[in-house]
């Protein structure tokens, strides 16, 4: 199964992720 987040945010929102990395619920996705 999959969860897709779609959201608006200020232009300077940046993800601190790498495609393919493992992640746990509660860990940060990105910063503004």
């Amino acid at each position, binding site marked *: 199964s999959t969860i897709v*987040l779609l959201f608006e945010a200020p232009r300077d929102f940046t993800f601190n992720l790498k495609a393919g990395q493992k992640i746990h619920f509660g860990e940060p996705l990105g910063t503004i």
Partner: protein
Amino acid sequence: FNAKSLGLQARIRPLPLFIITGGGYVGYDQYGRYRDRELERRGIEVPPRIANEAQVALYKSIPTRLLSRAWGRLNQVDLPTWLRKPIFSLYIWTFGVNMKEAAVEDLHHYRNLGEFFRRKLKPQVRPVCDSHCVTSPADGKILHFGRVRNCEVEQVKGVTYSLETFLGPHTWTDSVPINRNDEDKSSFQDMLVSKPGNELFHCVVYLAPGDYHCFHSPTDWRVAHRRHFPGSLMSVNPGVARWIKELFCHNERVVLSGEWKHGFFSLTAVGATNVGSIRIYFDKELRTNSPRYSKGSYNDFSYVSNNNQEGIFMRKGEHLGEFNLG
């Protein structure tokens, strides 16, 4: 027909013919993938091999919903106590489940695989990050993320799907004129972005079979609307996501939309073959993976009602829903 040609017909058995043609097709496909790997090894960017319409239609013709419901029924059958440990240990070993994080580690506690699949975690094993405004809603693997451009969202690098097909028409808030004429695609994306200077972002989290399958609120937001799209239950593992364009638009899914402090926010739970059912804890009306549905349909439900003008307020990290077998 003379005897010889009849004899020839009798000798051509369908099974060997099927095996030869199928084997030839698989061999040709594997050679193509080998060649792509060689090119990538030399640093040459190779476009992903997308399934053609016939292949997608063939895949969609597999009765995945029926299989999924049967799988779910099977996993609701309570196991005798002596059988629980071996069955669940096999599942744990196969999918790399970390039982130390489970709220209940004793395998005899779970009456069937469905219950085991819905296991909760010990609260302390997943601290919710306070210093960031958006956190992961679930355990899993980051398939893809980034900015949405021209109304196309990437499910994996290089394979996209249409934002409007995925979310459905923007009618969940009555602030938008419904009788839109055929404007260019970007206006759909523009309608979602409510504040000047903002952009639309997306992130795709893939939950593997051994992962914890509940999901939580990724931020503080107000959920105003639910749109349920009945659909196929094709596998959504990364290999299939690289192969079938618009995969997430084919599959059964539940779109929750609303607002957070920066404007539009949505979380979509997409079902898959063995995980056909989606539960949203505060939505008792939702029924997914039902036997009958009409293709391309969806049903809407608003959480904003006369006596609840706000919708459902969710705090970051709060329990939101779960995927179930079947």
